[in-house]
């Protein structure tokens, strides 16, 4: 098959950006979209051009590195699929595919399709952990955990931190990302000990990073490659309210 790729090119955050169109000839339906980009880059390198910068690592949909808006949708239109797992069999022969970076102020652009997602690391640093040191942990079976709770915790813990939820949201809200971690840990007895401090600190870090508020449009859920549901946001809101009622204050969280 043959595809045209309309790709956002931008040298750096301060340089002006523009779309450029590249022809991906002789691609096969069994190729992934990123493999088609690899092919375009090979041609560009061979002809003395400037290859397209894009993030990608595991190519199995688990590392969360890839981050491309495909025809207006983060990771493309296939439900529950990262860009690296999106294969060309889902596109029409001869189609033009538009590729853009995540566009959100807290994710400044680095080059072409590559953005800086450190804001997510800072949110986890604010409280997305259980404060235990190595050593001295009690037996893993010392506290039985109901299977349903573990399963629900796991449903949230599968977040790969790609940032598609932010890219899809008109407010550039990171609620789905933050709520996934808050839900994962608050559903487990190990994480309950510091649940109030955690949710207050993480929400504050989210706000400080410049992410917008949630207006419950559900666009994050629609694009999440791991099918995380917005129920987690409801759980986080409840955790947040609970923390405030228990006397916590967002200002004291950090």
């Amino acid at each position, binding site marked *: 098959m043959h595809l045209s790729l309309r790709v956002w090119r931008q040298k750096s955050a301060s340089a002006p950006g523009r779309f450029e169109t590249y022809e991906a000839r002789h691609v*096969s339906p*069994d*190729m992934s979209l990123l*493999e088609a980009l*690899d092919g375009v*880059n*090979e041609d*560009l*390198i*061979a002809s*003395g*051009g*400037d*290859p397209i*910068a894009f993030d*990608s*690592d*595991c*190519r199995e*949909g*688990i*590392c*969360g*590195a890839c981050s491309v808006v495909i025809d207006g949708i983060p990771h493309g239109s*296939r439900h*529950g699929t990262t860009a690296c*797992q*999106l*294969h060309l069999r889902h596109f029409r022969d001869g189609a033009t595919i538009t590729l853009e970076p995540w566009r959100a102020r807290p994710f400044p652009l*680095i080059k072409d399709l*590559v953005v800086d997602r*450190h804001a*997510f*690391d800072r949110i*986890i*640093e*604010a409280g*997305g*952990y*259980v404060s*235990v*040191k*190595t050593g001295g*942990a*009690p*037996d*893993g079976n010392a*506290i039985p*955990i*109901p*299977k349903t709770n*573990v399963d629900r*915790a*796991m449903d949230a*813990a*599968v977040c790969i*931190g790609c940032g598609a939820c932010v890219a899809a949201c008109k407010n550039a809200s990171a609620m789905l990302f933050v709520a996934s971690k808050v839900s*994962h840990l608050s559903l*487990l007895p*190990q994480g309950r000990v510091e649940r109030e401090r955690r949710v207050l600190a993480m929400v504050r870090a989210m706000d400080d990073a410049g992410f917008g508020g949630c207006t419950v449009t559900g666009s994050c859920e629609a694009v999440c490659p791991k099918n995380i549901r917005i129920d987690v946001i409801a759980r986080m809101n409840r955790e947040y309210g609970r923390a405030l009622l228990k006397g916590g204050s967002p200002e004291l969280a950090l």
Partner: protein
Amino acid sequence: MPIDAHIPSGPLERKWERHKSDLELVHPRNKRKYDVLVVGSGLSGAAAAATLAELGYRVKCFCFQDSARRAHSIAAQGGINAAKNCCNDGDSVSRLFRDTIKGGDFRSREANVYRLAQISVDIIDQCVAQGVPFAREYGGLLQNRSFGGAQVSRTFYARGQTGQQLLLGAYQALSRQISLGNARMFSRTEMLDLVVIDGQAKGIVVRDLVSGEIASHAGDAVVLATGGYANMFYLSTNAKGCNATAAWRAYRRGAFFANPCFTQIHPTCIPVGGEHQSKLTLMSESLRNDGRVWVPRRREDCAKAPGSIPEEDRDYYLERKYPSFGNLAPRDIASRATKEVCDAGRGVGPGGLGVYLDFGDAIRQMGIETMRERYGNLFEMYERIRGENAYEVPMRMYPAMHYTMGGLWVDYHLMSNLPGLFVIGEANFSDHGANRLGASGLMQGLADGYFILPYTIGHYFASGRPSKTPADHPGFAAAEAGVKARLARLLSVQGKRTVTSFHRELGRLLWNDCGMTRSEAGLREALGRIPELRAEFWGDVRVSGSGGEMNADLERANQVADYLELSELVCRDALMRGESCGGHFRTESVTEDGEARRDDAQFAFVAAWECRGADREPMLHKEPLVYEEARMSTRSYR
């Protein structure tokens, strides 16, 4: 020349306990005086960085990814072994030890493996305390499944994403230390050289992958947690960014490289789809708890739809050849058996390079929902890549390059022969011998990072009292200049061939001559061709862009240049080791029934290679493998 692994004396089961209490300590107040550089943020690196920071050392951690959370440990699917005997099926530390030694075909270091089995128990507890959501029974207790090479169920798991959950646990522990100011993270930063001063590792040279800036960091110890070199084969199950540069630069600076020819080919991966293929995807070994591997009995049935082939015309070759382990035969053995049936013309799919992994029986017995719960994400992944629904048609699988047991040589303290250079996780060589068992890689990474290195590194500081090296020592500037010159040289060739074309050619060569089976003739041919290919690379490669910007092509070129050296050492080691053992199968050393024939009289040693400069042959050092407890026997899974 024999080398000393510094294995403590005393009975095997008490070595580590006794040794731990003999190790010298650094006073808590003095730990702040030591800088530790941890390169890599996967399971072993993140675990080590977090734990060392908790102890009070000043830690800097480096990774090439944009976040520590994306290291390739995240892709490990099936699980992590631990001798907790939760299933009451007779498991114990000594059984896990024996399974691992046997799985490695008696080419691993006994004392290290025993310690690993002992520590395995603590790892699970640590991870649970961090909030890792391991699968649980309805009663709330931890659940297990089986993995290859074991007859007990000792594998703990979190759906098909165990590596992800364990890595996030370590990443979160590290994040906490970063927020406390005890650790600093340098992401999108790649180590390009090791700085050795007066024979001791004293720092690293790195490139900022965003700005292209070359800088160096001084430290009192350097910890390499940089993974394996499977990507040397171009097509492997590793992430695209995994590379051997840090380990190879350390080798070039004097660290010994051990057993480089011990590479692992995983039996169940999604077959190559075509020339465009950028990497291969593994389907977890755990699937073989319920999936059955088969090919048609007759060659003429190979093109038929699998559902139309009746039971009596199917050959469940693993169950037939290895009745006591069946589909969960170890990886090296299962991979060779698969190659054998495909070579005999009974493979399925394009090119006859595939076998079926069939869940029909399991679905009939337990229902689709149980399968979905156990492996849902893996079936989805398969569907994404192949466009087929494995609940209805069997998966098609073929072996692929997956893991490297070989790596930098380390002693019992996980320190290389260069004082101050520690190597942990897949990057070292010590625990898996000639073949790693499934679900043991995660175990080793976390054992090294959480529970071994934090003790032994303190001993190095306390007992050796290594001298402080100022960051303005000329050794750093010299190493930086070397790195800059090399990158400039790569950019200046401006030839006709792309980096990828060289990498693909090298990969094909290695897969054919140094892959699942190896022969003297093939290895000699490879050893003739690799230097030619290397010369072609340096004479005709085309690297785009400049060094002063984000430039993936330059990063890749630098890595491939190292593969073109490392691959020669791998083939040299494979040629030297004239026996078959584990994943290293020499066609000249085979038993009558086609299994690997080990030669303990000649080859019961670790081959540690010393670099003597680019234009001289490396020197072989032998560390004899002495077994006090395990009995060297012929490995059988029949």
